[in-house]
């Protein structure tokens, strides 16, 4: 646990301003201090800027993560950011009553889940899935919580705004990335995330949830299906 300070670790190239090369241990200490001192997750790019040039930040962080794994405080990754958080299994001791996380209405929770699993998703698609209009303020609550954001607009007629989740969403629900959403693969496999095509009518096209750039791509087959511009009936030749 406690590393020796004057060990024989390999040295890294020093930053231009520095006169002496920095030991790996020192680099680790700096990274640790930067992340530990912050309540918000620290972007990896931020760490890169502050660590000596040529540092393999990912490797440094992974080593730190291992060192902290058995402790009461853990180093976790969320999105491309790093943060220290109390260990989940200690919830029972630290949990504060007055600190109860914001309560969400059932509708808000449902909308949040749909946005998380179907993103980028338009409001019309959310309504199509729920079969009911999203009441005013439901999205507002999610945006205010900082979990949902406008992502962009779909390049389809009407250019509807697409919604997605934020990095704060990942952090709040303890997700490293969107891929870690519970049950994502099963849902994909069951074709439940790909438009309204009933099973047996067409082969579901798996949606790459992580590909954030996809959002602004030109219209794809997938978009058309999601928007209902291609009717399931249209592929009735199956």
């Amino acid at each position, binding site marked *: 646990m406690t590393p020796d300070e004057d060990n024989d670790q390999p040295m890294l190239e020093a930053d231009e301003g520095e006169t002496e090369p920095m030991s790996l241990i020192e680099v680790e200490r700096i990274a640790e201090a930067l992340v530990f*001192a912050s309540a918000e997750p620290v972007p990896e*790019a931020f760490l890169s800027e502050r660590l000596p040039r040529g540092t393999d930040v990912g490797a440094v962080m992974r080593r730190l993560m291992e060192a902290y794994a058995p402790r009461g405080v853990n180093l976790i990754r969320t999105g491309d950011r790093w943060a220290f*958080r109390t260990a989940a299994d200690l919830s029972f001791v630290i949990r504060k009553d007055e600190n109860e996380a914001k309560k969400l209405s059932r509708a808000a929770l*449902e909308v949040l889940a749909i946005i998380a699993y179907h993103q980028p998703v338009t409001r019309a698609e959310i309504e199509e899935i729920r079969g*009911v*209009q999203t009441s005013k303020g439901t999205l507002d609550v999610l945006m205010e919580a900082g979990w949902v954001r406008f992502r962009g607009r779909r390049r389809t007629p009407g250019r509807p705004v697409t919604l997605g989740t934020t990095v704060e969403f990942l952090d709040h629900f*303890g997700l490293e990335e969107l891929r870690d959403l*519970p049950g994502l693969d099963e849902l994909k496999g069951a074709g*439940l995330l790909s438009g309204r095509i009933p099973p047996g*009518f067409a082969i579901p096209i798996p949606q790459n949830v992580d590909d954030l750039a996809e959002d602004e791509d030109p219209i794809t087959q997938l978009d058309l299906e999601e928007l209902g511009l291609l009717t399931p009936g249209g592929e009735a030749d199956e």
Partner: protein
Amino acid sequence: MAVTTSQNAIPMDKLWQEPERAADDPALVIDVGGFEGPLDLLLHLARNQKVDLARISVLALAEQYLQFVESARRVRIELAADYLVMAAWLAYLKSKLLIPQQARGDDGPSGEEMAATLAFRLKRLEAMREAATRLVNRNRLGRDVFARGAPEHIPHRVQSAYDASLYDLLSAYANLRQRGAVTQVTIEKRKVWSLADARNLLTRMLGEIADWTALQHYLLPYLPPEDRITATASAFAASLELVREGKLEMRQDGAFQPIYLRKGQPLGTTKPVLQAVAGDVD
């Protein structure tokens, strides 16, 4: 909400706690307020069939739903338009399922295919519900897991000395414009279906109207007599508008015949058509 009888099988987060609903009771106490729309009600009814949603009897489901709406009308509960539109659609589906497939030519998806679509939608809604439950029961920051209580700095890759999110910007703008607009607003209670209401409903139904559907024909019986004229008029006007935009197609086989609607076909496939529009919508 409805009578509560059964016990929770799955431990649920308290966020989810709400009265259990039972529908297998014939003397069902109806309160639509507890449901998140007609699809939610259908899902609830479907769950009571206690089979995999893929193997559900859509016919039985449609009948249950229609009974539900019927009894709501008996006790004079005003149902939201959403529920009525769903009833109309299910009545249509039911008729398609009961009448054997005739030589309907290009009539598109069969009752079975429509049923499969419905089953799919129910399954998807249920899956999203379960996903939401799993999500909310994760170890959440500020409830189960905590951040550094006494942070010493805030890491920012600051490009700007100022901070504001898109949400901040948009809500500031919306509030501002709202403030300017609010003085001219008069709030009226309407007993009529506005064009906007009708358009909204129709637009939402578009996803479900894959094929020629005599929606109004089925919708009318579910409307209180005094609402029929206004609803028909607005629905018809709204549908014309949607036809003009290419979002909807209409067909009528002859005077006083039902008017069939279906979703506009993708551009290039067919040109939006407006066939034999008669003024008589009955």
